[in-house]
């Protein structure tokens, strides 16, 4: 295909081809990583280092996001609650929305921006400065040494952070309900405990594990597939966060149908 061609059909064609090549790249990467799991060939210390790093880096941002989100949920529900005079339902509404949808999605988006983008930037820098090639010449497999620990760490960490964020979001919601709507914390807690089942939290956490895979795979793929120096690194990060966000919403849609 002529890269100078700028007509609409050519552009559409190029977009479809690049989408297909990225989807294929992610699938191939997932396959190659899966092969290294049986028998497990994984750098243990590197896994711990990544878990620690990602956790420490994300705790503040996830905490702030979750608290604010809880507050926003209550404000948005407030109109409905007032309209129907149903204070008892606030715990149910906020709890259900947070645990099932809003918590996992927003925390995953923030995690993608913080950890996923950073992962792409790091891997992309290593790729453009030929450090990945250097690893290979030293007979170190970049996939088991670099990528697999990061993928596992991201999935585990997003799961843990979602639990932490869910709790903070509910606290934020309870506080906001009290401050803005005059719904006491006890009423909120009652409404929450009576209606929310373990399954509601479980679906959210299943989703967040899924989002973890999406973020890990797409951020690693775009990091390794980078071309073209410092501007290339910026482009790779951009592409990776966009792909992760799209992936998160598509997976969420599918998961919502399957996990009623």
């Amino acid at each position, binding site marked *: 295909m002529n890269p100078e061609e700028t007509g609409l059909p050519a552009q559409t064609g190029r977009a479809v081809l690049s989408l297909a090549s990225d989807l294929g790249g992610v699938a191939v990467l997932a396959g190659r990583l899966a092969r290294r799991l049986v028998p497990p060939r994984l750098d243990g210390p590197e896994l711990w280092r990544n878990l620690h790093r990602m956790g420490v880096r994300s705790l503040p*941002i996830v905490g*702030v*996001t979750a608290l*604010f*989100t809880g*507050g*926003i949920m209550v*404000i*948005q529900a*407030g*109109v*409905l609650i*007032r309209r129907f005079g149903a204070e008892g339902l606030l715990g149910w509404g906020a709890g*259900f929305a947070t645990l*099932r*949808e809003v918590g996992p999605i*927003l925390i995953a*988006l*923030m995690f*993608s*921006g*913080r950890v996923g*983008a*950073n992962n*792409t*930037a*790091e891997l*992309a*820098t290593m790729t*453009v*400065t030929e450090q990945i090639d250097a690893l290979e010449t030293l007979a170190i497999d970049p996939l088991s040494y670099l990528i697999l620990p990061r993928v596992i760490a991201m999935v585990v960490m997003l799961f843990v952070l979602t639990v932490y964020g869910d709790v903070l979001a509910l606290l934020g919601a309870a506080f906001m309900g009290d401050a*803005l709507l005059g719904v006491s914390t006890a009423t909120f807690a009652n409404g929450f405990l009576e209606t929310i089942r373990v399954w509601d939290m479980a679906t959210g956490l299943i989703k967040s594990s899924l989002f973890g895979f999406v973020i890990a795979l797409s951020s690693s793929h775009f990091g390794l597939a980078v071309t073209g*120096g*410092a*501007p*290339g*690194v*910026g*482009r790779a*990060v*951009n592409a990776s*966060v*966009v792909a992760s*966000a*799209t992936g998160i*919403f*598509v997976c*969420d*849609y599918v998961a*919502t*149908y399957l996990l*009623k």
Partner: protein
Amino acid sequence: MTAELDPMERPHGPAEAAARRALADARELQGVFLRTLYWTFRGRRESGEVMRQCFEVGYRSAFFLSVTMGFIGMILVFQSGLQLLRVVPDLTLLGATFLELLVRDLGPTIAAMMLATRVGAGIAAEIGSMVVTEQVDALRMCGVDPVDHLVVPRFIASMVMTTALVVFSGLVSFAAGGATAWFVFDVQPLTYVNFSLLDRGDLITGVLKCLAYGAAVPIVSGWCGLTTRGGSEGVGSATTSAVVNSSLAVIMLDLVISGVGFVVFA
């Protein structure tokens, strides 16, 4: 090494260091914000530049936003439909409630989170690589404030295009939700499209949010790009912090505007 002691070298704890850094960041961000406003009204614009940025922001994000917002519409209508059926067997207000929520909060906020990702990362990457290749310093040597030349066109374009994209992707989201309501819960489109719950307060809050997010994303990301240090690693971390900081700015503004809107209009 020379023998002189550096007078700036004073020992201080990690908490103090973090507080100093936060304060310095806040002052820099405020500087970028004020200079953006100043140059928006005082600067001389090359006429094509704002249009080019509008195209960059709009054209490159429209597809991405429609996909994500479309999915959001389907997911939310599906979830809330299921929940409503548990409480009341009547789904006639499903569309009206969703529309109200979409206009007042979800449309602007989710779309702006996506734009923070798409546009914010792009702005920081572009400006950041100009910083590390010293092009920004060269601009300053030629008498150009980088904020005027690089941030302001993106600022104007982002305010305009965020509003336009929120309306467009909100329509996509509403339509996708309508399709879900029709096929899953058998809610007829005529019942679903219902503006009865939409009032002045919802519209004002929604538009305010569009403008505030549209202003915040380029300023925060431009600041992240302009403070880039180092080589390609620096560009990477500037891009990362642009995504995180502009998303955070969106969420904070959301809380503030929603809170004020609730107190004023409800």
